[in-house]
């Protein structure tokens, strides 16, 4: 039977990918960030996942405002890397797991989560940066990846509690998959940041510390945050953290914190990295 063996929360700041791709990871600005990611990479290598379900948001690359699915899952065998306006990132293409993806879609829809199905789509930095952070610069990603896109671009995104419940439904569906697979779930984006307006650059370290603690010990408390609270407290784009709650929901009741790293700034953002193991 398939089972969820770990959860990773990881910011997906595009500048992280650019720093790696341009060979700047060792410079004084970036070294403290990348040094802080090493234990997560070592932890993930030990966990040895076969498949990752990677929850992220597309940034006007695979999707546009033409059609805006709230939750979308990719079923393709292969996801090419998107050109986001400056050429595609020089990273390997992403191999999917169509069989598990279709199993999840069937189960999620029958479990009342009306997923949009993507049979073909490119993937952008929202997906590839967390892979780079946790796998390093590789010729081939060490596991299959099922992309799960969440709309956070057009207000309103799904609520935190809805994302948490989606995670719980993912857990049920994974556990019913008959093959023996080790699955990790990524929740990406965040932490506090604001990319727009006169308030750009907002970072709320107290909020982020509260959120990191809540992810480990009291996710129910976090599911009560309203969209306006996210935006007021953690910046307008801090609302991406609802995607972390989807990951947390997939891990079950209790978790062990395997690693935590937090840094300000990462470009315009407070970045967080959290590795969790289910204990049930």
């Amino acid at each position: 039977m398939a089972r969820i063996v770990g959860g990773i929360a990881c910011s997906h700041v595009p500048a992280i990918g650019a720093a790696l791709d341009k060979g700047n990871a060792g410079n004084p600005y970036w070294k403290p960030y990348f040094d802080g990611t090493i234990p997560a990479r070592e932890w993930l290598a030990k966990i040895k996942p076969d498949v990752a379900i990677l929850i992220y948001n597309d940034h006007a690359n695979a999707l546009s405002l033409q059609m805006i699915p709230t939750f979308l899952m990719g079923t393709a065998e292969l996801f090419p890397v998107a050109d986001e306006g400056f050429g595609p990132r020089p990273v390997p293409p992403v191999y999917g797991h169509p069989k598990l993806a279709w199993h999840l879609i069937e189960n999620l829809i029958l479990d009342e989560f009306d997923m949009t199905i993507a049979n073909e789509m490119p993937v952008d930095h929202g997906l590839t940066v967390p892979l780079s952070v946790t796998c390093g610069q590789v010729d081939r990603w060490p596991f299959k990846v099922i992309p799960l896109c969440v709309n956070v671009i057009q207000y309103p995104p799904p609520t935190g509690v809805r994302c948490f419940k989606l995670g719980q439904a993912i857990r049920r569906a994974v556990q019913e998959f008959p093959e023996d697979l080790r699955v990790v779930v990524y929740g990406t984006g965040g932490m506090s940041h604001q990319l727009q307006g006169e308030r750009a650059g907002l970072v709320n370290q107290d909020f982020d510390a509260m959120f990191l603690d809540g992810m480990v010990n009291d996710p129910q408390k976090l599911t009560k945050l309203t969209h306006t609270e996210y935006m007021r407290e953690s910046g307008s784009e801090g609302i991406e953290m609802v995607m972390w709650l989807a990951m947390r929901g997939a891990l079950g009741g209790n978790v062990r914190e395997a690693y935590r790293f937090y840094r300000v700034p990462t470009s315009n953002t407070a970045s967080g990295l959290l590795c969790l193991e289910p204990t049930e």
Partner: protein
Amino acid sequence: MAAPRDYESIPGTYVYDAERGRVGYHLNMFCMSLNDPKNREAFKADESAYLDRFPLTPEQKESVLKRDWLGMLKVGGNIYYTIKIAFCDGLTFQDVAGMMCSMPKEEYAKMMMAGGRSPEDNRYKEEAK
């Protein structure tokens, strides 16, 4: 349930909601077109003519031509989309963020290095300086 659009009380923030989505659609779809290298070339060759391919309002067109990043948000721009223009210009997110809050690039970078903009006195319009 929170009061509708209570986020409008947040200072310096333009939430891309239904109100802005209704007016900003074509402006943002223009921005997205710049994902295609051929379109980037065409835009660079003649910005005004390229913009005329999209049904923009005069204010929207003007804000793009002037690279008025804050102005674009006020006429329906979505930052995840308008940033495509900046990438086409060879600017970074941080360059644009500084321009939106009228801070010189170095000052903005310094603020970020020092921990970012504080949320203190920055949660409600009436308390913001």
